[in-house]
């Protein structure tokens, strides 16, 4: 047995290092947990403003932006110092945001104000606001940077906004309470999750029309417990992962057939997710069980769950090997 145990130890030691750094916003404890993806441990907990939710690295990997809704601002965490160093001027109650491919412009959904704020990331200055539907939340930008998508939870729409004119060019009605939007990398489809509707609507971005839907069914679970929120798309656009909230599962969806191929059990009320840059792992935030689950993407298996702060909400992973190193 001891021989076998040392064999295991050897196998573990031989695993190559893939140290990325993940930042997790803990909505209730007002902190950000820093996870080392080599040891899978929390290496630091950073005190931030009140109700941190949306969180994302700047494109150069130098800063982490975190929307602290109850402080009506976005804080900037220096990835090297691992402390809050500055703020960005959002509207009231910022929740989720997205940035263009160059990392120059930031678009912030302000949940209580029915607006999207446009911020110049270099000057850290507000450029203007765009009026959208009630309770804006989901934010994403088309790969060519020309179209900004915002979903509004109460209006049940995905708004298509022209980034040059900052005008809404189309509204697409989706199922109840759209939470999150994600483009395919080839821009051929836009996926929008509906929390109450319990589905993911697939929108043709050219025609501005829903062309398909992904539905979910888990034996033994009530339909109301299945609440799709976060979506993660692999770089080859072949597989999508959808967080199902209180169903405590991540659905693995074949994007060709638009059918669920597998359900992966994670922690309670799974919300958002992020891939490591090498796409080996997918990390999910589990709000109620206060942990982050790690999914081996190739094996489609949950390999570990790591305790973080209270009510983990969003997650972002540094684009490079160590913090501060650009892609």
């Amino acid at each position: 047995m001891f021989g076998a145990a040392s064999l295991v130890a050897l196998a573990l030691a031989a695993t190559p290092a893939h140290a990325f750094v993940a930042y997790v916003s803990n909505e209730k404890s007002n902190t950000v947990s820093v996870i080392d993806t080599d040891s899978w441990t929390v290496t630091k907990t950073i005190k931030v403003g009140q109700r941190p939710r949306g969180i994302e690295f700047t494109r150069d990997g130098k800063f982490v932006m975190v929307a602290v809704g109850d402080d009506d601002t976005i804080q900037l965490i220096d990835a090297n110092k691992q402390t809050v160093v500055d703020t960005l001027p959002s509207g009231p109650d910022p929740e989720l945001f997205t940035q263009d491919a160059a990392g120059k412009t930031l678009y912030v959904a302000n949940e209580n104000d029915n607006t999207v704020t446009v911020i110049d990331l270099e000057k850290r200055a507000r450029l203007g606001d765009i009026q959208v539907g009630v309770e804006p939340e989901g934010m994403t930008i088309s790969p060519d940077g020309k179209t900004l998508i915002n979903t509004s939870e109460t209006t049940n729409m995905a708004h298509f906004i022209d980034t040059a004119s900052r005008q809404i060019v189309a509204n697409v009605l989706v199922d109840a309470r759209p939470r999150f939007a994600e483009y395919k990398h080839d821009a051929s489809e836009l996926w929008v999750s509906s929390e109450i509707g319990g589905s993911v609507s697939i929108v043709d971005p050219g025609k501005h029309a829903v062309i398909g839907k992904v539905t979910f069914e888990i034996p033994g679970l009530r339909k109301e417990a299945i609440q799709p929120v976060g979506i993660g798309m692999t770089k080859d656009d072949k597989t999508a992962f959808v967080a199902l909230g209180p169903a405590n599962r991540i659905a693995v969806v074949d994007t060709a057939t638009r059918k669920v191929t597998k359900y992966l059990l994670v922690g309670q009320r799974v919300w958002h997710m992020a891939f490591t840059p090498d796409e080996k792992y997918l990390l999910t935030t589990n709000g109620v069980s206060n942990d982050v689950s790690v999914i081996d993407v190739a094996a489609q298996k949950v390999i570990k769950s790591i305790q973080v702060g209270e009510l983990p909400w969003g997650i972002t992973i540094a684009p490079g090997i160590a913090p501060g190193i650009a892609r």
Partner: protein
Amino acid sequence: MSSITTRDAPRGFTASEYMTCLTGIVWREGLRFLHQRERFVSALVRPLVWLFIFAAGFRQVLGISIIPPYETYILYEVFIAPGLMAMIQLFNGMQSSLSMVYDREMGNMRTLLVSPLPRGFLLFCKLLAGTAVSLLQVYAFLIIAWFWDITPPLIGYLTVLPALILSGLMLGSLGMLISSGIKQLENFAGVMNFVIFPMFFASSALYPLWRVQEGSPYLYYVCQANPFTHAVELIRFALYGQINWVSLAVVAGCTIVFMIAAIYAYDPSRGLARRGPAGGEA
């Protein structure tokens, strides 16, 4: 190497003679097992019924807390798999001692015990043979379980082997000890119910012990004192490439105690089938 005195001349035995004896007994047990196809099928059907039917109903029960050796949330069927592996060994241990009662009734036992080799060695061979049979059953179960999404790490299939051998020996020697006190086959069915079911249910095979503790602290202590619980935990940890030292110590200790007691109880000078002072030497 110990020796016994025969009528002709006192002499020791060579290692090859021991091996001949060992392979003979293991071979006979293996043949018997292969010829009893129903036994193999029933040994597999029993845990599979638990896995496919019982666990299906309790699917949502777990997944609410992480307990070692697991590193994330698991479905109920993943949790009970090690318990069912131990159950296979428990039934097998009792069944091979049942075969000893049968041997004794049919007179085959006499053939075995007139062998000049030390009795302790003969009984140990018998135990090893029974354990080997249980290994076949457990690995067959694991193969089927794989298709039911019970997929421990590949290395786990190797690391679980020593744990299975040890727990198989413990449960086998317990069965042997019990069978030494039984005169007839008919009595054994009752003992099966009095031994197997309490051991199986008052253990961590079907539910984690923290759950039991919530329900009844006393039952929790009973479960903790149950060697079967430790066999289950030893297998559970080994299946994930880890060692549960407490369980290892308990299972190893119990194996030694049960084995010595069984050998003592089978000593004809104290009366083969008499309810001897079992465990007296331990």
